[in-house]
């Protein structure tokens, strides 16, 4: 199932939740919608599910207009952030619900329903919980039951809203791995919303980075990390050192100090983005940043140092290999190995 979203606009009062969003999702993809809260990612997910409606724009599944159908007719499996399990029903009945509410003409027989529910509980490896009630399950178990319930209706699309948001760190890690494996097994076109970049980069085939109702970048996890398209993506994904620079005639200056780096297409007041581990430490010299080591701590293979840049004493944090130990008080130069310059300083 392919999903196509065109020119979606959704406004809540004066707040623009989605501002002309376009998105194509290929069949069998596992896509992450990544962004800070208020970026519009959940709104987009809910519109695709049929839980909310856009003010304008189109949504189609395999070329068919999805907006003409209500949530119940779209065959979309939706896993809610807080699971939304029916607390008065056993795990078994929760999973069976979607099968039991089908119109009588197409409804499966009781035996078929039982077999299907058993199959799904096996799939999420929780068949031994069939007779429990939601209040007797752990968070991770509830999450998996919610997923089994969503899969019961054989959805053409699987949508997950912050699927791991309410879980503790350890369970979250296990479930990530599990979701990936499950997706490989069932191969349903899936979209999940998250504000956790690690989760998005680790689980998804493709990542959609959103901010303020717009899509900032769409790409593979490697792509959005290595080649951020915008200043927002660079600062949102991975940790970056951000320095205000001035570009004129292709010359990049930090304060009054010219830097020996390529300005690219930027000009005027801009921002220089460098990953912490992309700062190369060298001897003092022309065209590099200079500073004094203030504090050093070591983590496994790296040493992390706070460097006060000469001039205005801006503190930057860098990661360096341990082969050349740094000590507090050292005067060093920093040369960005990989970097991006984006125009504008907000």
């Amino acid at each position, binding site marked *: *199932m392919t999903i196509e979203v065109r020119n979606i606009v959704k406004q809540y009062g004066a707040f623009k939740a989605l501002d002309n969003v376009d998105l194509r999702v290929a069949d069998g993809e596992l896509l992450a919608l990544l962004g800070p809260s208020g970026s519009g990612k959940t709104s987009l997910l809910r519109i695709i599910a049929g839980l909310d*409606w856009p003010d304008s724009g189109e949504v189609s599944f395999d070329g*068919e*207009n999805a*907006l*003409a*159908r*209500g*949530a119940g*007719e779209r065959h979309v499996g939706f896993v809610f952030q807080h699971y939304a399990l029916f607390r008065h029903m056993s795990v078994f009945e929760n999973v069976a619900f979607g099968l039991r509410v089908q119109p009588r003409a197409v409804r499966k027989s009781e035996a078929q329903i039982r077999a299907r529910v058993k199959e799904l509980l096996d799939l999420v490896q929780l068949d031994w919980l069939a007779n429990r009630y939601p209040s007797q399950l752990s968070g991770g178990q509830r999450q998996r039951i919610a997923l089994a319930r969503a899969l019961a209706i054989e959805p053409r699309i699987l949508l997950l809203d912050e699927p791991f948001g309410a879980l503790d760190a350890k369970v979250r890690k296990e479930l990530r791995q599990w979701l990936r494996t499950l997706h490989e097994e069932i191969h349903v076109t899936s979209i999940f919303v998250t504000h956790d970049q690690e989760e998005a980069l680790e689980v998804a085939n493709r990542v959609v980075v959103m901010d303020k109702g717009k899509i900032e970048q769409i790409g593979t996890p490697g792509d959005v990390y290595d080649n951020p398209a915008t200043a927002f993506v660079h600062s949102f994904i991975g940790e970056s050192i951000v320095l205000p620079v001035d570009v004129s005639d292709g010359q990049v200056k930090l304060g009054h100090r010219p830097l020996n780096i390529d300005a690219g297409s930027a000009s005027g007041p801009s921002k220089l983005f460098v990953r912490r581990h992309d700062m190369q430490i060298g001897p003092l010299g022309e065209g590099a940043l200079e500073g004094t080591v203030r504090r050093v701590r070591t983590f496994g293979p790296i040493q992390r140092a706070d460097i006060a840049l000469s001039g205005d004493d801006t503190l930057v944090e860098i990661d360096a290999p341990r082969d050349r130990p740094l000590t507090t008080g050292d005067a060093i130069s920093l040369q960005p190995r990989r970097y991006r310059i984006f125009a504008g300083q907000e």
Partner: protein
Amino acid sequence: MTITIINSPVTVERAQSVARQDLHTEPWLVRGIIIGVAVMFLTVFVVLPLILVFSEALSKGVGFYLSALGDSEALSAIWLTLITAVISVSLNLVFGVAAAWAVAKFEFRGKTLLVTLIDLPFSVSPVISGLVFVLLFGAQGFFGPWLMAHGINILFAVPAIVLATTFVTFPFVARELIPLMQEQGSQEEEAAISLGASGWRTFVVVTLPNIKWGLLYGVLLCNARAMGEFGAVSVVSGHIRGETNTMPLLVEILYNEYQLVASFAIASLLALLALLTLIAKTILEGQIEEGQLPRDD
């Protein structure tokens, strides 16, 4: 999926409006019927009787209304009602605070049982609430002969009216305070004690300000019920005119004597009390919620 839908704009728009209608609410017709039934029901059973009380009371003009209220029997009933309410509300206020303190601030076995017992008068028929005092203090009662021998009047006199009223209104204050104090926990009190405050001072300076709106709310409800209690008081009062008639009892007597306007005049005072209590309740609920807001974070 290879089904294609013919996308004429009109059908799409209609389909969309149909599709988007049914998720969080019902079709307008169903909504209209439900609202209609709810409003009708409340109008017939609540609004009309209430309007009727005032319209009957004023049906012979304001002058008649006022003279009915100024009648000496009416005045003595109002006086007795006020006295009874003041005594039983103060008794239940002290008890309610003590009970809430014990239940909310401490853990002990049998707490559920205690709370159930405190609630008991709610589930007892008002007539039975009166009956138990007749059995205690009546001529054939446990203490009746002794009381009579010593010339002490309890039954068919003010003490029994106060007792029955206190019995009926017993749970109101405690019931309001217990959940409130349980929700607030004991941390603030523990802090005060650890800073060296005495128990009494802690209660007055820390607990009381936290529960004041809930307390006032409980007192108001208690008072409304105390002034309006009919069944229990009717059983123990003896209906001695000008002496042991409270306002609700006078309403009954006047009604049975076909003095309808006078009866509704007294009733209108009681209805007004009920309305004022409800208005105060609405305001206080807002205050209680407001007072609890900062506790959430």
